[in-house]
């Protein structure tokens, strides 16, 4: 049924038709006409963030944790450019998002008008697609296309830029108008010949390893992954973003590999005769030196994006398709086996290279904090992190019980992701416990969002791993710059407990191992948000470590 509406109304009706119930954003001049109709659409809950980067990361956290498309609003110019880091973060990790930005009026475009920025030009490399919509008549179709593009195939962020007067203009909206994207197809089932080739390799392999990436999480193929691994008795290594796609207490769980991953995971990959990659892009943090990556193995690469096949690693058996469909095709063709010898060897690797030593120190260390969080929450929390040492400790020591409970900026490596992504995760999962594990560096990049937390009564628990240092930077300067420490010390950190209290948030400080469990229990028991300032030791030795661009041969295990 054709509707005659303003551009703003078309946007809201189309968002509701797409199932959107929450948007994160900040108003500004060019997008005010859209905000002007929000009161007519109570189905759209607007969460006002304090910075547009926060809106983008919150939409990202919402999307990752719920499996739906996250939505962010921002105004023209600086509002829109402030989204860029959030879009780039979502793009690198294939997170479905739609960002709607206001633009200056049509007549002013290209005149360097006040708060004008060519945001479609700026965001081309960091979006899956973007639009500048010049007619209200095109808005409805564009919004529906944007959601289709964002959530299907390899997901990603899509930006829609709308001039102020297009929001105001009357236009036709046909909710049933079919989308028209002749240049866009969504892979489903894989070619049967590719499946047969992959199944044959799996059935012949003696030392196979599954590398489970973000694609398993994005396609929600947790049960299928487990079924395949158990049927063919294949150890499962999860990539950083694949963490929580496979139960970590499972006997076949073999950790995460790469630069700061478990040594046994990297060794299993190195010694394998077959790598079965489900939805990982053979990222350089896993591969290191591509010439020396698991040279004795054949590779199967299952990916929905054909451009990822043979991009960094040559594979014998490419399988292009939706991972969930591919599991369904592969499972009946993969033989049930026992593989006793190889599994014993992998167990031996785990025993010989434990990698996850909790430091035997009286002082409070990052690992102690994550271990205690994992124990007290029984692995049942949604965890968000920033980037750096605390992220790696979280990845190494939190024992994830639930699928899809790990939110971390893997590809972009965005410090500051931890604070607002937790907002999105909590909004999307109001009944779940959300712990945001923060670095003191990253926390200060986005901590203004504590106001958003308070305003929306979100019971998020923030764990600041506070060592007054950019920990990963000190480590690299120690290893690769002869200990020439530069710009890594934070001497101006605020009192995070007082800071929390200034926002009306409960603040707790923990300085010793003895206080750990009781503080975490106290935070969990508190109804509202909590900031726990864990005052930890500065260390230069996050192990294991494979230096950048190197291989397993250069693995540095914990010398202590």
């Amino acid at each position: 049924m054709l509707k005659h509406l303003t551009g703003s109304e078309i946007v809201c009706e189309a968002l509701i038709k797409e199932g959107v119930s929450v948007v994160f954003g900040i108003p500004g001049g060019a997008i005010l006409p859209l905000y002007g109709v929000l009161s007519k659409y109570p189905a759209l809950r607007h969460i006002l963030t304090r910075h547009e980067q926060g809106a983008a990361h919150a939409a990202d956290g919402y999307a990752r944790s719920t499996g739906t498309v996250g939505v962010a609003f921002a105004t023209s110019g600086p509002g829109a450019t402030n989204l860029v880091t959030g879009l780039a973060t979502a793009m690198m990790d294939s997170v479905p998002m739609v960002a709607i930005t206001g633009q200056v009026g049509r007549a002013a475009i290209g005149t360097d008008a006040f708060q004008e920025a060519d945001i479609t030009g700026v965001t081309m490399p960091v979006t899956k697609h973007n639009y500048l919509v010049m007619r209200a008549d095109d808005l409805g179709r564009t919004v529906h296309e944007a959601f289709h593009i964002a959530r299907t195939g390899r997901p990603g962020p899509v930006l829609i830029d709308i001039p102020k007067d297009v929001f105001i203009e009357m236009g036709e909206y046909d909710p049933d108008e079919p989308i028209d994207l002749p240049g866009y197809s969504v892979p489903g089932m894989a070619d049967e010949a590719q499946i047969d080739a992959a199944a044959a390799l799996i059935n012949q392999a003696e030392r196979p390893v599954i590398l489970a990436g973000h694609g398993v999480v994005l396609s929600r193929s947790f049960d299928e992954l487990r079924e395949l691994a158990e049927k063919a008795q294949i150890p499962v290594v999860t990539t950083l973003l694949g963490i929580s796609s496979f139960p970590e207490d499972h006997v076949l769980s073999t950790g995460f590999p790469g630069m700061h991953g478990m040594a046994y995971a990297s060794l299993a990959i190195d010694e394998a005769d077959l790598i079965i990659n489900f939805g990982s892009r053979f990222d350089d943090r896993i591969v290191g030196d591509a010439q020396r990556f698991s040279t004795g193995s054949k590779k199967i690469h299952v990916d929905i994006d054909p451009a990822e096949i043979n991009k960094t690693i040559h594979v014998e058996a490419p399988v292009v398709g939706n991972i969930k469909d591919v599991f369904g095709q592969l499972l009946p063709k993969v033989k049930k086996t026992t593989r006793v010898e190889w599994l014993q060897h992998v167990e031996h690797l785990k025993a010989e290279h434990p990698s996850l030593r909790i430091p035997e120190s009286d002082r409070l260390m990052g690992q102690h904090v994550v271990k205690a969080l994992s124990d007290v929450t029984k692995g049942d929390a949604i965890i968000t992190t920033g980037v750096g040492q605390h992220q790696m400790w979280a990845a190494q020591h939190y024992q994830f019980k639930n699928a899809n409970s790990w939110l971390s900026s893997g590809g972009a490596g965005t410090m500051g992701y931890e604070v607002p992504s937790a907002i999105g995760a909590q909004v999307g999962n109001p009944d779940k416990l959300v712990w945001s594990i923060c670095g003191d560096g990253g926390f200060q990049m986005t901590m203004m969002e504590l106001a958003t937390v308070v305003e929306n009564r979100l019971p998020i628990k923030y764990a600041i791993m506070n060592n007054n240092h950019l920990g990963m930077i000190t480590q690299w300067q120690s290893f690769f710059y002869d200990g020439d420490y530069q710009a890594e010390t934070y001497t101006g950190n605020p009192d995070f407990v007082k800071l929390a209290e200034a926002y009306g948030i409960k603040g707790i400080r923990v300085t010793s191992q003895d206080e750990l469990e009781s503080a975490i229990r106290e935070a969990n028991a508190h109804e509202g948000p909590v900031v726990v300032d864990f005052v930890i030791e500065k260390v230069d030795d996050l192990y294991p470590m494979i230096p950048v661009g190197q291989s397993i041969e250069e693995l540095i295990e914990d010398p202590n």
Partner: protein
Amino acid sequence: MAETANGTFQRTIAALVQDRPGVLARIAGLFRRRGFNIASLAVGRSERPGLSRMTFVVEGPEEVVRQVAAQLDRLIDVVEVHDITEQNIVWRELALIKVRANAGKRGEILELANIFRVNVIDIGVESLTMEISGGRQKIDSLIELLRKFGLEEVIRTGRVATLRGTLVEGEDDGLFQSDASKSTYTLPTATGESGSV
């Protein structure tokens, strides 16, 4: 895949793209950030309303240029893309060549033009301009032969290519029409690229 003189590789990509503002910017941006080097690019409206055809010749390390078609296909505005490097294709390029030509040299130049079956499209007191279409080698050859007269301007369109309609081997690269192929003229050594693969 043809290896060029400097050790990089060339691929020919044919794409059908949406005829919309910003499409070229998307493609150019993709090429820039992925490190694909455009040797030539030809764009024009296609037989299908709303769609343009683009023919790219890209240069770079082999493992990089092999990814061009797959990366292009990720763009929503790219409707179809084919890496036709190893397929049976026919391609042509158009060039306008303005060469210095006073009365004394004009006869020799016109004779060359005749052998190459090119059209002289403008003639002045001191120069003449000819239009040549064909494969790269043919155009390169003519340019080399004209160089000694003094080249004033060379304008090339870049390659346009299409798949051959039959499986019968065609002309090598369009150097000569069928009757002219009996000519004794031989090509100067080029980089081993051929119009039909």
